[in-house]
């Protein structure tokens, strides 16, 4: 069979990618308090502790609020940027788009530190709101990347055709462009949501005393006793990510099928 060696390599690579993650459920359901082999026995106690933990619940609520808000903000801003960059020529376009996309190639610590310095200097109280601001900034380039692909795959004459058939520019956008890029919008929302939910650095420095899931996890990693609960939390997070990505993939494929394009597969 063609590429047999390559296939074996690719499968080994996938196993390497997934192996550490597979440890999560193993130890999340292991009754031993120490993360070590051999396993002791099956328990759901850690999940119970997780649900009962008030700080964790607060962190979870905070993370949800942050992720929902910043994904909506990033996607809305992303629609403007993606539409502008795919449809219009304007002076300074490469520089402007470069600035907006910059967080993609900027180490997060720089974004976090510079934002922190400014926020402290102008006396803004650190809260989940400041995290939302930071997360919107770093989610925006990802949203734009996804939305630009969606806008780009549209034939420009579709819009002109709607306009030619008597619609106004706005109703042409609403009736033709919006439904066709809707799968891209949903993907961008889900992607931003996932990024925000997982983001640690900015949340760590900009949240003040408010916990988010990643900063809560980070704070607990020092305590060996807390690790099994973190393992169960990690399990929940991984499952959530997979569910969200599956939904995102579903919408992406539906978008592809709807407009009758060839499926090239994958995000980005």
């Amino acid at each position, binding site marked *: 069979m063609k590429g047999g060696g390559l296939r074996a390599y690719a499968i080994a690579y996938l196993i390497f990618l997934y192996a550490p993650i597979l*440890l999560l459920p193993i130890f999340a359901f292991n009754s031993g308090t120490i993360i070590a082999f051999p396993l002791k026995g099956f328990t759901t106690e850690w999940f119970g502790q997780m649900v009962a933990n008030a700080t964790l619940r607060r962190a979870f609520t905070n993370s949800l609020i942050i992720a929902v808000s910043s994904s909506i903000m990033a996607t809305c801003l992303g629609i403007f940027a993606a539409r502008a960059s795919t449809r219009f020529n304007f002076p300074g376009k490469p520089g*402007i788009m470069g600035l*907006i996309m910059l967080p993609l190639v900027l*180490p997060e610590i720089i974004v976090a530190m510079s934002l922190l310095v400014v926020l402290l200097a102008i006396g803004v109280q650190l809260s989940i709101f400041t995290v939302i*601001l*930071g997360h919107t900034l770093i989610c*925006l380039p990802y949203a734009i990347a996804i939305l630009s692909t969606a806008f780009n795959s549209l034939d420009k004459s579709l819009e002109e055709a709607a306009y030619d058939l008597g619609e106004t520019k706005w109703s042409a956008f609403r009736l033709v462009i919006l439904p066709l890029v809707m799968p891209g919008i949903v993907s961008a929302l889900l992607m931003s949501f996932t990024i925000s939910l997982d983001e640690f650095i900015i949340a760590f*420095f900009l949240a003040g005393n408010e916990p988010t899931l990643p900063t809560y996890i980070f704070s607990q990693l020092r305590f060996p006793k807390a690790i099994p609960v973190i393992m169960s939390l990690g399990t929940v*997070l991984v499952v959530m990510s997979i569910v969200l990505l599956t939904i995102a993939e579903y919408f992406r494929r539906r978008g592809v099928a709807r407009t009758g394009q060839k499926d090239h597969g994958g995000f980005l």
Partner: protein
Amino acid sequence: MSAPRFDAEARQGLAMVSPPLIYAILLLAAPLLTILAYSFFKDGYLEVIREFTLENYRAVWTDPVFHKIMLRSLGVAVAVTLATVLLAFPVAYFLSFVVKPERKALWIFLITIPFWTSYLIRVFLWKVILGHNGVINSSLTGLGLIDEPLGFLLFNVQAMVITLAHAYAPFAILPIYVALEKIDRSLLEAGRDLGESRLMTFWRVTLPLAMPGVIAATLIVFIPTIGDYVTPELIGGGKIPMIANMVQANMLALDNKPMGSALAITAMLIVTVVSLIFLFFNRRFLRVQQ
């Protein structure tokens, strides 16, 4: 006579791009300019003295600790980048050339899932694997292969490289895959037709055409790894800092914002220079392609 429509289009485009642009100016450009300004200011007790000085930069550049940490950061980032890109290339090649078109989406989906699962937890898991009572040590002791847990597994640069290489592995595959997908398959047939072996066709046709993807992958892995904060904290045990940890320490723990800013700006400059070198290669390859 100039074209009025161009102006109208430019106006519309600028109006359209202004909300995200204003956002990026306020929350990105302004803060970056602020730390740039700070890096030229003097540090006073609990405040920043607005007086121009190059002292911070002189201090940074002559500081042997900075040299050591910067070199370590570069070393780790280069090692991680090399490992991820080299390991990713065959997978990307497999995806593009071997996997049937209808199965590609599934493979990419499988590869991207770890990419989107909590980075913090992925890093932490390596601590679990490599730690004193970790998976490896406990398994080996359990099997009776060793008596004492191996101490050299964690808290060193190698462990950091392994962790980061794993964390960024999927990042490298996608850009290479995209570049390989763009290659016109008839070019490869032409290479074979003109008398080259499979290997030489790969060397002379496929690889040069895939280079833009390889360079993109290199940058995508290199930039976040060099600025990584979490891995030195968790896997390095806080004792093997990289540049991000040093910036953070100066900014917050030592509360020397001008020094922290100068460090951050210096680090950014170095990253930019390295990236520009890569981009320069990329441009050369792109020109060859056109």
